[in-house]
């Protein structure tokens, strides 16, 4: 029998223009981006909302806590801002049986912290109760719970060198900030933390006459941020009542002893360290401020903001304000902290998080409705 049994060639037909298509791929992508670009901001839809709790990673991913109410179990979903639209990664939460019904709307609490590489995530969400959950995407993304019981953690922060993780908890007299030292690559955090900041003495003296639940009572700890060198932590102490004033405390790391306390006008919504670690930019009740940590002088900056994030190397902040003067519309914008010049403004609503990418070439913002804003300047 004379039948040819030669192996099939993999490329049967010569390809005419495909090689050219590959060569021009980067120029085609630039065109696609520029078509939807307004000024230096690129806007794209990355998920169907609403998701209230969101945190952007240094790589441009977004972790979100999707509350399904009575429709099913809550879930953590991870979306990519960069690249082509893709299905989210859904992370398994470690529920107890009673917790599988989902969190009723309006009772959602919690937060996330991304590792500096963007490959690991720590979650503090309502179904986990007091514990935290650690996900490592380089090792399959399975969750591992850690941390001792206590009030619900409300805010998390991971130091930029990856060495420490801090969790702030509310809970009045039981409130505290716990600090973990990252110990090994496989699972860096143990159940017991390294050190804690408890109920501070100055708050006790200041509010000794105020009963829990009344305006002015200490609620617990909120927003927190590590200094660029990881040796200090700024944390907001929150007080009850619409007109109550929070404060910002600076503690040393890892000792967690109080170094400085700064009274704030209104409630703190965000804290960012300047790149040199000598200044804090913070947002309170819609206004942005700058605090000089050497003199403890604070000045109100000439713009409002609820979110702020410092550039890793330049004296530049990306900010969001939900209320633009005379229009009641929100905006994203950049601020030169040397000249206080505001530039590259862009209209945006319901922004839930802002941050810079790890190399400072891009900034990201995400809204609760799933709109992502990518700031990619030509010249900064």
């Amino acid at each position: 029998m004379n039948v040819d049994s030669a192996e099939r060639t993999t490329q049967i037909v010569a390809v005419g223009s495909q090689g050219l298509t590959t060569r021009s791929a980067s120029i085609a992508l630039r065109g696609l981006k520029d078509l939807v670009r307004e000024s230096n901001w690129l806007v794209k839809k990355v998920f169907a909302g609403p998701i209230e709790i969101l945190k952007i990673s240094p790589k441009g991913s977004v972790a979100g806590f999707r509350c399904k109410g009575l429709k099913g179990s809550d879930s953590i979903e991870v979306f990519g801002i960069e690249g082509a639209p893709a299905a989210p990664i859904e992370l398994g939460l470690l529920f107890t049986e009673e917790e599988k019904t989902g969190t009723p709307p309006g009772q959602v609490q919690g937060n996330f912290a991304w590792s500096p590489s963007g490959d690991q995530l720590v979650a503090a969400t309502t179904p986990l109760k007091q514990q935290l959950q650690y996900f490592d995407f380089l090792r399959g993304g399975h969750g591992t719970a850690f941390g001792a019981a206590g009030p619900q953690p409300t805010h998390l922060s991971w130091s930029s060198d990856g060495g420490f993780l801090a969790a702030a908890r509310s809970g009045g007299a039981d409130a505290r900030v716990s600090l973990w030292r990252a110990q090994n690559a496989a699972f860096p955090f143990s159940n017991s933390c390294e050190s804690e900041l408890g109920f501070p003495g100055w708050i006790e003296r200041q509010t000794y006459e105020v009963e829990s639940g009344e305006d002015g009572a200490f609620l617990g700890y909120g927003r927190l941020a590590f200094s660029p060198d990881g040796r200090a932590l700024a944390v907001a102490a929150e007080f009850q009542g619409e007109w109550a004033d929070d404060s910002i405390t600076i503690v040393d790391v890892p000792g967690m002893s109080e170094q400085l306390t700064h009274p704030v006008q209104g409630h703190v919504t965000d804290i960012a360290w300047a790149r040199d670690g000598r200044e804090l930019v913070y947002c309170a009740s819609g206004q942005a401020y700058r605090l000089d940590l050497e003199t403890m002088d604070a000045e109100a900056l000439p713009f409002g903001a609820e979110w702020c994030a410092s550039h890793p190397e330049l004296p530049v902040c990306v900010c969001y304000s939900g209320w633009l003067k005379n229009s009641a519309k929100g905006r994203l914008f950049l601020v030169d902290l040397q000249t206080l010049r505001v530039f590259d403004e862009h209209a945006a609503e319901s922004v839930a998080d802002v941050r810079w990418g790890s190399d400072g070439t891009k900034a990201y913002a995400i809204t609760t409705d799933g709109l992502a804003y990518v700031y990619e300047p030509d010249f900064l």
Partner: protein
Amino acid sequence: MSPNTMNSPADASVSGRIEKPEERELTRKNEEFAAIETELAERELRIVNVRAELGAFERNYLHTVGTLYAELDEWKARIAEKTAQRQPENSRSGKAANDARARANQTKASVEIGSAEDSKPFEASPAMKKLYREVARRIHPDLTSDRADRAKRQVLMAEANQAYECADEAKLRKILAHYECSPETVTGEGAGPELVRVIRRISQGRSRLAEIEAELQDLFRSDLFQLKQRVDEAAEHGRDLLGDLRGKVEQQIASAKERLQEVGQFVGQ
């Protein structure tokens, strides 16, 4: 006469001879093969059309917009180089300047290779499509099991694809005539070997169909195709999206020129 139907069992039944089981099977397989031949020709036509349309769009895009990106990258490289000159001790600035120069060179090279001033949208006539289908059905490399024949068909098929993309009908006819007259078209050693050959051809044809589908999906997912879709959709609504894009890149070039002037003044101080 097609080589796949020579000495067919159908001839035997017409002549009144008793059809052997392998001859009946060969008839069935030849019918199946004929269907795959037709489908393969259709799919090859589809992918060659998509490639040709995308190629024409790409040449036009690179000419109208890509050249501006090349100019923009050139200005950016000059800015980065001036900035590095301003900060000779800053290694990051030096690296940024090198990266910017490499990018500018790369963009320029891509644009020079791919752009064409006289590029028109690709559109094949119904006659060309019909002819291409016939050529693909007759000379497709995956429709033969003979090693030498397949090698010859591969070369001819590549020439046919080029001729189709250039709308060169005469060349397509020449390719077809050339193959029809070649000795590789003559086969036949009885029902058994023929049955094995046709089964293998069916298998090869199916594999090629799967490859075409995967290749099509890759093309549809490409950024260039997404861009073309947007441009085509906008054109249906009377909007010149490439013109808009040109305007945006021209603005970026204007900003870059201003920035270079600022940096240059600083260096000069």
